[in-house]
């Protein structure tokens, strides 16, 4: 793997809503609690957030409504100006960009999908998808061709002449996805893209989304309020509460080691063995004392998927390998079994 590059980086950013957010923010210490700020008549939508997002990574920002997750992603795209701090996209401070530079950035590098689709009602599917290309002045034939490609990609081929109103919610969101991909963005923002859809369609769209991501391998910031969705999709999850990030880590780590009480509330109901991968429970890179299996298991597998092995093959440790056959470390059988069936605290 090549050296991973940071695509979006932000340090200690704040976004306050209210009458005079800049002036107010200057007068308060960084650790002022959310409630205190609210008492003073301001809403701290984003507080003290620092985050680095690397190329090709899918980071899921998870939080309940009002936690500031949608505001944060809008700050990354500079649909909103932050009150304090800096955001760098590909090393450039977007807060210092001119309107024109910003438009160029969006025309070349960024795509966004919205919860309620944000489609233009008076344009056909084709013209909606081609809209970003039209904005940057591409010719009719070229943009038509590219838009058709995108429509086929999301599986809407044959419906390019329909109007958004004539499509179901799931189909409309496919149009939204196609539109956001039309300019071949490097960075892909998805703001609760599947929340407005019913559960069955949501599942289907998640699969579709994973398929697309496999093909395209973009840097993705995905917003959701659904913890299951986050676990299913994320390389890393950032859990937000009252505008601040409570914990940002891999799904394995979040489930195994919730950093705060708030985070652990989400993990309580989760069937951990289905989430945690063997590579997430590695104990050490060196072989410890105890019996070691004479075969190795794949790090990409979840503990649940390894259940049969864990029960049948009685070794204290199993070597764990990645898909290239490289040894990653060892999995402790006792720990894995406890995760699978729960700790032994009966009686």
């Amino acid at each position, binding site marked *: 793997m090549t050296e991973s590059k940071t695509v979006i980086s932000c340090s200690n950013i704040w976004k306050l809503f209210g009458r005079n957010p800049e002036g107010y923010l200057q007068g308060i210490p960084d650790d002022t609690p959310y409630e205190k700020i609210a008492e003073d008549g301001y809403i701290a939508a984003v507080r003290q957030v620092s985050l680095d997002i690397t190329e090709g990574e899918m980071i899921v920002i998870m939080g309940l409504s009002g936690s500031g997750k949608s505001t944060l992603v809008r700050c990354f795209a500079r649909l909103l100006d932050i009150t304090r701090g800096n955001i760098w996209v590909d090393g450039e401070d977007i807060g210092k960009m001119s309107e024109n530079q910003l438009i160029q950035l969006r025309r070349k590098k960024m795509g966004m999908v919205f919860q309620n689709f944000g489609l233009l009602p008076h344009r056909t599917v084709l013209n909606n998808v081609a809209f970003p290309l039209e*904005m940057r002045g591409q010719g009719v034939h070229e943009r038509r061709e590219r838009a058709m490609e995108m429509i086929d990609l999301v599986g809407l081929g044959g419906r390019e002449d329909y109007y958004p109103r004539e499509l179901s919610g799931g189909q409309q969101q496919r149009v939204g996805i196609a*539109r956001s991909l039309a300019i071949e963005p490097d960075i892909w923002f998805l703001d609760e893209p599947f929340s407005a859809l019913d559960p069955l369609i949501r599942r289907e769209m998640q699969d579709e989304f994973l398929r697309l991501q496999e093909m395209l391998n973009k840097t993705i910031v995905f917003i959701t309020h659904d913890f299951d969705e986050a676990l299913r999709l994320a390389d890393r999850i950032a859990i937000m509460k009252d505008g601040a990030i409570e914990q940002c880590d891999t799904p394995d780590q979040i489930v195994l080691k919730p950093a705060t009480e708030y985070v652990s509330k989400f993990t309580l109901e989760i069937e951990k063995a289905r989430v945690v991968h063997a590579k997430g429970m590695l104990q050490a890179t060196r072989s410890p004392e105890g019996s070691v299996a004479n075969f190795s298991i794949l790090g990409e597998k979840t503990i649940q998927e390894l259940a049969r092995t864990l029960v049948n093959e009685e070794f204290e440790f199993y070597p764990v390998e990645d898909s290239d056959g490289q040894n990653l470390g060892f999995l402790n059988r006792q720990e894995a079994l406890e995760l699978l069936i729960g700790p032994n605290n009966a009686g």
Partner: protein
Amino acid sequence: MLGNSNLSSNGFLGLSNKHWTFVFLAITLVLALFKGIFPEGLTRPPESLVFPFADWINFFFVFIRDDLGLIHVSRAISGGVEWLLDITANLLYGKHRWPRIGPIPWSAIAATAFVLGYSLGGWRLSLISGGTFIWIAVMGQWKWAMETLSVIIVATPISVLIGLIFGTLAWRSKIFERILNPILNVAQTMPHFAYMIPVVVFIGVGPKAGAIVTVIFAVPPMIRMTLLGLKSVPPEVIEGGKMAGSTGWQLLRFVRVPSARTEILIGVNQVIMQCLAMVVLASFIGMPGLGQKLLQLLQSLKIGKSVEIGISIVLIAITLDRCTQAWAKRQPIHFPKGTSIFLRHKFFFSWLVLFVLFVVLGKFIPILEEVKRNQALSISAPIEVGVDWLVITLDPVTQWIRWFLITWILIPLRNFYLWVPFTAVLALLACIGFRIGGVRSALICTIFFALIAISGWWDRTMITVYTVTVAVIIAAIIGFPMGVFASFGDRSSKTILLICDTLQTFPSFIYLIPVVMLFGVNDVAVIGAVVLFAAVPLTRYTIEGLRNVDPQIIEASQMSGATKYQTLFKARLPMAIPTIMVGVNQSVMFSLFMVIIAAFIGTQDLGQEMQRALSFTDVGKGLVLGLIVSFIGLMVDHLIMTWSYSRKKALGIN
């Protein structure tokens, strides 16, 4: 009142609103009951207090017209408008001007209306729109109707364009919106005639003056709807546009304006309806067409002929309204792949075929080109017979109503309104203001009426207020129970709502026909016209208020064992009252407009003075009178809307 926010929460100057209400009520009573012991200056506004506002306005107008040379600007504008009017006039009724290709045969225009109606709303609409033009032609009113329409065709696009520009500017600049808002408020409450006088001063009389006054009158609603439309585009659609990399202009052109399509088209609908209302009234400043005919016929009491014209105006109103509404509601639809160009544009091609067909046929069959005077039908004779019979049969009733209204209600009430000292009225308004909206409302109400008092038109104002009061009360007595009963059934609600919607599209002038028919030309006829006009919004909002009550509330009260009437009085009415009050508000606004229009059939209120100002082209007087009407309207509007808003908030609606 900086720094003492604690104090102001206790009310104005430390007394609560409730206390202030009582204080001003007491002042009112003292001023009224002991009127005799107070100096005359507290009863009627003394001459020394009257400001010569009219002279100032006249001075100002003369200054900008002659000294600043605005007359040249207005001449240039009216020249342009006249050129456009000549084109439509040539095409529609063959006025001998460029491009000299008209007139288009009436049958071809009727076919155009038919296809347009069909493409927008199917068979029913096509029958209404096509039928309207056939009726007009057959009744021999073609030229007058085309005179009227040619002005609407010119005025509408100009109003829409100006409205779009101002609406967009107001949307872009908060400051501009703040400046524009009060101007629009006054503009939308000023009676039609107040607009005409300055136009007569700058432009003169005739069709171009009619067109220009129509444009000015029709612009405010377009500004409002544009602003509303631009504001109500969903934020995600705009963000979607931004993320697509649109520049500010692209965002406006490709995202905001098209997404606001429905609101903008509703604005267009309102513009057209306002244009029609104004064009009909512009007959007072020499605008030819249906309005002028109607005015002449009404003045000479030719009921049969006026009914014929009235029907035409009503049909035109319905056609224009239904077509533009259908256009506003129309959603884009896709064609299956491989649809031929003729099918894609089937309406255009069928129109083209029909149009050419009738133009050619007209050359061979003259009656399809023009219905001559002697060929025209008339239903005026049977109408007159019917109306005469009706008037004679109803005479005892109408006589009694007239006698009863005049002796027992109108004259006593009118004398009472004139008897009340103006200071008592001001104190009463302060009392009501405090009761409803606190110190701000009290100030608004008293300032509006204090300005009226020092304008020198106090008595005329009180007569107008009395007419409006009587009319709204009678309208409520008719409209409210009608709305309540209609609201019991689904079908009756729909029917009555449809009737109300249709009645509301009629130009106000139309309402004079039936009352003149029944009561002749007098006070009671004026009240009758105002009542008719004002009862419509009352009925409508009563139905809407009662029908839109949350069904769960009604179900809950039914499950509590409430009878139909218990449900009505204990659950539905209390929830519907705020909406019904909005209807009352509209009914007051409509009454004010109607009182002024009805003036030419004889009243002694502001309307009569307005008519005089119009015939003497006295801009100052006209505008002062217009502003007085506007102030009354704005004050009532403020009080009712404040009350309705706080009531809705208390009930947790919206």
